[in-house]
Structure formats: structure tokens, C-alpha cells
């Protein structure tokens, strides 16, 4: 295994009683999701998914409702049993793991955040956040201390003895995050954590999470149905359609180079200004001279367009040694902007 913290190989999930039969038929005949449903009464949740997430990276999974995102992440801590395929987490094989080892993995290595918070209403915030430690038999005092720290990190200290229904939605989801972080796990699974919040709060929480993860370096699987969010948060993005991962790449790769119409459709409305970089759109020098207007190879499109404000002559792209490596014409810049 490489430095991948989470790795899934050829993962399949078919829901339903006749999943084994359906699985065989899908493999031999390549049935679609609808055909599987009509013939076997089974739902194809995940179809042959393979991906790996490096330590410390934020990996977004995005797709329309029903595309199998939730199903896919729930395999990582095996809340859902795979029909076929392998799952490796933090160097351990999860799909063949025994019950005790699995519970330990869930309690110590993986924290999870849910779309509808899923805070237990009969427990105080402290009891909610300390739950993972409680089921492992950690004494009350220690649990409370961890809960205090975790709530403090989410700017919720002082609320420890309150109940979830006394908090606003945004605060509740911060408790959800605190609960996931309380046991200091290496991995975070976040199933549309901010989707139920209104845009302003969502933005706030995204920023808070990003700055948090900058110094915590948790390996994060982040689900969203909003490409803007995926681009903001993700180091890599996987796009799902009908249970299948159709494309994996960096935000820039996805936006500039969608593999099919489904992905292209998502990408259409996305602003490229902060995504496309100079080296992607430059043309080779081919013996031409550099011009006085210069940008670095990793400059974003916005910066390049600024250069055309004064006059429309081409911009030179330089490498880190300040040597010219390419040119960008105004036409290339505008084409990239339109997408």
C-alpha cells in the first residue's frame, strides 16, 4: 500500500435480498441501475468504485441526490456491508475485519458528521460529544475534559450542559463536528455536513472547517451535492453518477477537462477565475521573445486578466527561476474564462 489513508478497490454495493444474483448478472451482462431494479428488485448503490485518499487531504465526493455518495462513505467505517470489493483504512483491511476490531476502528480512528446532525436529543452536548469515549469505557472525568476541549475548538465552550434543541442549526452542526473530533481520530467522514444550513452559516462553517483542518491535517472524506463547495473544500474531487465514479481529479482538472456531459453540466456555471492557472492555458514560446508583462506559472486566471486591463498584448508566463516558458494571448484568456 502507498501513503493512502483510505483506499477502496472495485467496491460494489447492491441493496436487496437477491443482491448476489444481481451482482453476477451485472458482471456478466453489464446491466444498468434501472435494469437491475426491474429484474431483481435490487438497488444498485455503488458500482465498481475505486479511489484512494492521501493522508491529510480533503477528498470531496459529489453527485446528484441518489447517486450513491452516502452509500459509498458508509463503507469506509462499514456501516454498510459491501457486496464486493476491498476497503483499506489506515493500513487495515476493513471489509474482512472482526466485530471488535471494527468497533475500535470506529471509535478511535474515524469520526463522522451527519447531514441532519443526528445529535441525541436526550443527551447534553457534553454527553453527545463524549459518546465515543463513553462506549469505550473511558471514565466520566476524562470524557468531560475531552468534550470541553472539542467544544472549545468549535467555539462552544460554556454550552456543555445544554441540550441540542437549545441551539441553532449552525451551532448544532458545530457540535456534530466536535463530536467527530472528540476522540482525535485520523479520519473524518462528513456526509453533506453543511447542506441543511442557510448559505451564510454554511460559508462560515466551511471557512471554520478549512482553517481547522489546516493545522489538524485530518484525512477527510467530504460529501456534497454542491460543486462550488467541493471546489472550495477539496484537494481532489470524485464525481458520482448512478453509483459510479465518473471522474476523479483536482478541482482544476474537473473544471477544465470534464470527461462527459454529466460532469460538463455540473461545471458549466462554475467561475473559472480562481481555478484555471497560467500553465494550463499558455502556449509554448516557440522562439518568440518574452514580453514585459509577466505572471508566474501557477498564477490564477483572475491575475492574468488583470494584466490585460492596460493593453491587450500577450502575457509571458515564467517558471520559478523567472525564465519565460510560455505566452498567453488575450484570446486564450477569454476562452478559458468562458469555459
Amino acid at each position, binding site marked *: 500500500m502507498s501513503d493512502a489513508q483510505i483506499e477502496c478497490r472495485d467496491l460494489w454495493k447492491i441493496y436487496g435480498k437477491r443482491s448476489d444474483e444481481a451482482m453476477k448478472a451485472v458482471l456478466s451482462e453489464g446491466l444498468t441501475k434501472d435494469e437491475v431494479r426491474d429484474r431483481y428488485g435490487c438497488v444498485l448503490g455503488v458500482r465498481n468504485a475505486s479511489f484512494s485518499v492521501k493522508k491529510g487531504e480533503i477528498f470531496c465526493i459529489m453527485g446528484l441526490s441518489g447517486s450513491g455518495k452516502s452509500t459509498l462513505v458508509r463503507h469506509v467505517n462499514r456501516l454498510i456491508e459491501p457486496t464486493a470489493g476491498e476497503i483499506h483504512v489506515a493500513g487495515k483491511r476493513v471489509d474482512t475485519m472482526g466485530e471488535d476490531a471494527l468497533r475500535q476502528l470506529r471509535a478511535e480512528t*474515524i469520526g463522522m458528521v*451527519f*447531514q441532519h446532525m*443526528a*445529535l*441525541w436529543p*436526550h443527551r447534553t452536548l457534553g454527553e453527545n460529544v463524549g459518546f465515543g469515549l463513553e462506549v469505550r469505557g473511558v471514565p466520566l472525568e476524562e470524557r468531560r475534559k475531552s468534550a470541553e476541549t472539542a467544544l472549545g475548538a468549535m467555539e462552544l465552550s460554556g454550552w456543555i450542559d445544554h*441540550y441540542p434543541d437549545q441551539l441553532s442549526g449552525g451551532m448544532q452542526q458545530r457540535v456534530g463536528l466536535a463530536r467527530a473530533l472528540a476522540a482525535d481520530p485520523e479520519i473524518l467522514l462528513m456526509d453533506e455536513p453543511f447542506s441543511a444550513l442557510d448559505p451564510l452559516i454554511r460559508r462560515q462553517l466551511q471557512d471554520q472547517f478549512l482553517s481547522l483542518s489546516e493545522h489538524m491535517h485530518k484525512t477527510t472524506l467530504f460529501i456534497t451535492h454542491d460543486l462550488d463547495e467541493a471546489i472550495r473544500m477539496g484537494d481532489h474531487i470524485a464525481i458520482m453518477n448512478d453509483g459510479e465514479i465518473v471522474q476523479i481529479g483536482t478541482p482544476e482538472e474537473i473544471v477544465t477537462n470534464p470527461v462527459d456531459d454529466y460532469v460538463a453540466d455540473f461545471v458549466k456555471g462554475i467561475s473559472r477565475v480562481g481555478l484555471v492557472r497560467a500553465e494550463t492555458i499558455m502556449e509554448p514560446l516557440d522562439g518568440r521573445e518574452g514580453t514585459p508583462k509577466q505572471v508566474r506559472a501557477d498564477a490564477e486566471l483572475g491575475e492574468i486578466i488583470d494584466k490585460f486591463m492596460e493593453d491587450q498584448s500577450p502575457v509571458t508566463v515564467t517558471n520559478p527561476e523567472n525564465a519565460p516558458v510560455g505566452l498567453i494571448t488575450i484570446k486564450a484568456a477569454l476562452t478559458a474564462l468562458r469555459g
Partner: protein
Amino acid sequence: MDLWNIFDKEWIPVGVWVETALQWVVANFRFIFQAIKVPFDLVLTALEDGLTEAPDLLVLALIVLIAWQAGGRKLGIISAICMTAIGLMGAWEESMTTLSIVLTCVVFCSLIGIPLGVLAAKRNRFWMVLQPILDLMQTIPSFVYLVPIVMLFSIGNVSGVIVTFIYALPPVVRLTNLGIRQVRPDMVEAARAFGASNRQTLYKVELPLALPTIMAGVNQTIMMALSMVVVSSMISVTGLGQMVLRGIGRLDMGLATVGGLGIVFLAIVIDRVSQSFGQSSRARNHQKWYETGPVGAVRTLVRK
């Protein structure tokens, strides 16, 4: 034979069959049923002795305190009025007997019904089998099984508890099953995601969240047990029911009324108190039970 009136003759002698089967069971297995009586007998005797032998006013005070603790000062006052009325009408002794029968029944219904309900919620097949049995228990008129019960368990208060138990068990099973099934799936999923075992999930998440529904079941069970009071007095169960029955038998309207009123007052108290037990702390502004009522008052006094 008159073909037009073939039903004059009894073709399928169900009655005879049942009769013989019952005779056979009684002759061979009576000891089993006598053994079943033992735990019921133990609890009932303890409760009845406690309630009837303790000084009336002490019991009254205890009931009022419990009501106050469970449902606040208003319920405490209502209970005081109802119980005093019973006492003043001269039905105190009888009401204590009835109360202990009902309480015994509740103890056993909860002890057996709640685990059954949990199991039913977890195993669909078990629930499919259990459901028709519960329907049967609720729909067979209770008069019908008075006779076999008497033959198997003989007459008296313990048999009364058993009849009442059979009649009153279904709601607590049904509502426990419902309550557990209604727990939001993501609440359970979250518990599992943080490493809880099935047992931990049940005790720490599912049961607490289902508690209001389960308590509604217990409350219904209590009300059904109370409604059996008069019927079960036919197998010489003592208490308020017997006052009513004797009153009817002798056309003694006074006696029947006193018994009837006693049942009503007792029902009000038990119903309200058991309903208040079912309220979650969320509905009470998250005050813990020991922060309110007489216990809370004592605690604040001690703190000062």
C-alpha cells in the same frame, strides 16, 4: 332428519373438545400453573401487605408525594383530593387491594412486555408471529377465559392478577415495538458510527428515545388493568370491583356507587401519575427529575 334444519344438531362439538382438553391439562399439568402463580403471588402479597397494613395517612402522604414529584404540585393536590375522597367514602381498604393488584399487573406487564416489544422491533419474523397472538389476547372477551383460568389457577386475587395480565399485556408490547421502530435511523447510525455495540445502542440511544412511547404503552396497560377490576371480581378477587359486583347482586345501589366512584378516583390518580412519568425531560425544560417536586425542594433546602 329434517334437512331444512340441519343446524339443529351440533356437528362439530368444539365445546366438548375444549372441555376434554382442558380437563386433561388440569389433570396432568396443574403443577406447572401453580408454579407460574408463585412470582405473581410474591409481588402481590408484598404490595398488598405493605399498602393495607401501613397507616392509612402514611400511604396517603406517600401517594401524594409521588404524584407531586411526577407531575408537579397540581397533580399532588388532585391526588390528595381523590385519595381522601376514597378514604372518606369508606373504600380505603378495598382501594388498596385494587391498587396492589393493578401495580402487580403493571410490574409483570412491563417486565415481560418491554423485552418482548424490543425483540419484536428487532426481528420482523418474531413480530409477525406475535402480532396475531396479541390481537387474540385483546379481542377474546375476558369472560371467556375466566373459566379456564379458574380451573388452572383456582380463584382468588392472584388468579385475578393473571387474568388482568393477559388482558393488559398487549399495549405495552405494541407500543414498545412501535417506539423502538420509530427512533430516527440516523440516531442509531450515529451511535454505531462512534463504536457502540448493539447493546450499548439499545440502552443509550434507542430505549431513551423510545421512552415516551413505551410509557404511553404502560399507561394504556394500567388503564386496561383498571377496566378489568369489576370483571375479575367474578373469580372472587377482592377490592373495589367486588363492592360493585356485590352492589349489583344485592341491588344495593349505594354500595355499587361507592365502589364505582372509588375506581374512578383511583383511575384518575394512576392515569395522571403514570402519564407524567412518561414525559421526557425535554418536555420539562430539561430539568432533571430530582431538581423538581418535593425532592428538588428538599435538595435546595439542604444546600442552604
